[in-house]
């Protein structure tokens, strides 16, 4: 087949999917909350992409790692915003502005890696359990039950405490722990979706003409079941960033001085009472990074809420 014919065929095949996509985008545009959410997310994407321009690295104290916040001196007490440090400096003279800007990239990195990792494990387990059923299903689902028997934050905490002494870098340990805690929810969702389409006529037809399991799963089952789950799951990035920030606040985050919103707030804890003359003296150490986290999570949650309704087949065409 010529390339041109192949392309034509691809276009014809994609036709219904493109139509659905256009319909989805139309629904998104009609929902004000999701538009606000998208706007906020877009803002953070631009902020992250422009980080090297907005906060150029290269300070001596960073030792060549752009994610380390530059340090201006060794004084302990935070310094208020000034032209040199637009958001002030935190405990140990780390520049808060730099930390907040580069923290955006850290947030995306944490969110995307954790969701990606959890989805991959969730997909494999969910497909195996849902498609093959029987004892494989029983075994895998009982295993997910066991992980779901733990409160997520606590299990993640325990995993980090065990992973760090093994010599894994702190932020990696946090992300790994979150993946290990996060996948069971997705595997359940995916399994459910696969069970829904597994006995449809077109799957039976594919089986009867002798397609391999791999082909049936990738060409027939997955496209008709999990794509919407995958899209909606991506929007859990906000929740994951919140989760990581909470761990970071408990002292289980990136190494000291790393641009991470949760850590900046964690290090501001000694300064929240200000001084006797001015109780709000050090407001900038926690208000500003807190706003960054809150808006980031809010953006993803707003879009996620709206998309969940949009992708819900019972509500979609009402």
């Amino acid at each position, binding site marked *: 087949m010529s390339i041109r014919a192949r392309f034509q065929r691809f276009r014809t095949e994609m036709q219904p999917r493109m139509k659905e996509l256009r319909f989805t985008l139309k629904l998104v545009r009609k929902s004000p909350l999701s538009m606000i959410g998208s706007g906020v997310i877009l803002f953070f994407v631009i902020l992250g992409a422009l980080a090297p321009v907005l906060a150029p690295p290269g300070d001596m104290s960073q030792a060549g790692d752009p994610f380390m916040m530059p340090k201006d001196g060794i004084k302990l007490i935070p310094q208020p915003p000034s032209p040199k440090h637009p958001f002030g400096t935190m405990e140990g003279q780390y520049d808060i502005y730099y930390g907040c800007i580069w923290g955006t990239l850290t947030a995306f990195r944490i969110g995307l890696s954790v969701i990606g990792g959890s989805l991959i494990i969730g997909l494999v387990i969910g497909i195996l359990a849902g498609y093959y059923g029987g004892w494989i299903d029983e075994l895998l689902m*009982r*295993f997910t*039950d*066991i*992980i779901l*028997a*733990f*409160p997520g*934050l*606590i*299990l993640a*905490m*325990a*995993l*980090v*405490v*065990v*992973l*760090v*002494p*093994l010599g894994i870098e702190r932020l990696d340990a946090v992300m790994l722990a979150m993946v290990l805690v996060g996948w069971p929810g997705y595997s359940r969702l995916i399994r459910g979706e696969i069970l829904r389409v597994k006995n449809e006529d077109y799957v039976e037809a594919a089986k009867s003409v002798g397609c391999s399991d791999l082909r049936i799963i990738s060409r027939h089952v997955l496209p008709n079941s999990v794509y919407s789950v995958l899209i909606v799951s991506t929007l859990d990035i*906000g*929740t994951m960033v*919140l989760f990581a*920030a*909470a761990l970071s*606040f*408990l*002292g*289980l985050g990136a190494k000291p001085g790393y641009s991470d919103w*949760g850590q900046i*707030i964690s290090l*501001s*804890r000694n300064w*929240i*009472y*200000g001084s006797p003359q001015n*109780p*709000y003296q050090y*407001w900038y150490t*926690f*208000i500003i990074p*807190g706003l960054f*986290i*809150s808006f980031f*999570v*809010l953006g993803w*949650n*707003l879009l996620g*809420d709206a998309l969940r309704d949009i992708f819900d087949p019972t509500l979609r065409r009402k």
Partner: protein
Amino acid sequence: MGLRTYVIRRLLLSIPVLFGAVLLIFAVVQFLPIGLRATLFIQDPRQVRFIDQIIAEHGLDQPVYVQFYYWLRAVLVEQNLGLDRNAEPVFNAMMARLPATVEIVMFASPLIVLVGLYLGVLSGANKDKLVDHGSRILAIMGTSLPSFWFGIVLLSIFYAGLGWFPPSRWGQEVNKFITAPNTTWTWYTRLITIDSLINGEYWIFVDGIRHLVLPVTILTLLNSAVIVRVTRSSMLESLGKDYITAAKAKGLSKREVVNRHARRNALIPAITISGLMIASLFTGVTITETVFNMGGIGQYAAESARVLDIPPVIGYTLLSAVAFVLSNLVVDILYAYVDPRIRLG
């Protein structure tokens, strides 16, 4: 299936999950080097010198299943969860801090449920009105605001700024009073708000409440959001049913339709989620406890985790898994009791 059969079946089903959870913790601990694992068995700081003896005694050099047996026996029979960095047995340390956690949950859970159900019903009955938008915004805020940051902001305003609601469990004067050598104070339940009433020291009660206001407020704002969401959607579903149309056709007022017909049916899923919420609150307070320095069991685990003190973290994880599974069991049984369709289905 009768209720009894259902309860027994559900009990039996939760045993493998519980066992699996314990096994999982054991497996996680197995990743640690042997010397670190031995510290999980230490009950007395003097034992540190006899690490090799502990390794032999608890079979840490034996095959994995033997080790599992030894460990399980130590945990179940002797309640031996090891020693924390202050040379205190982890089990005792956790039990000493449990009342602080119970006290927060005791005040927060009724508030969470009432606020959640009330706002949920209200916004479901007034879809797309001002109340509805308001409570939806609250719900989204509840899931988006970092609780620790929110706590810090409240502390900065209401303690540092206004001096109304201090952190920690009680003030210095209370501490002086209850730890004085000739004190008349007696502990009964270890809950400061209840014991102060029994002791007749009302000023201590007031002090205890003042210390509880901020953590309870945060927990209510952040956790009722989930209940609002579930109640709202089940209210909407219930309002779309035929019996509502019938009730309206009879000429009942909107108030009566909502209160007598829609609400009753909408509350069943809402109550389940409330039960689960309270169950998860015991561990969900970890961050709030830490922010407000309430001295609870979650704070103990979190502070141990910060310095990589493993035994308390493992002990707490174990305890919380058991508590979580058992409370889910209780919720399920209650639910089956309330709704016969569950046990018959």
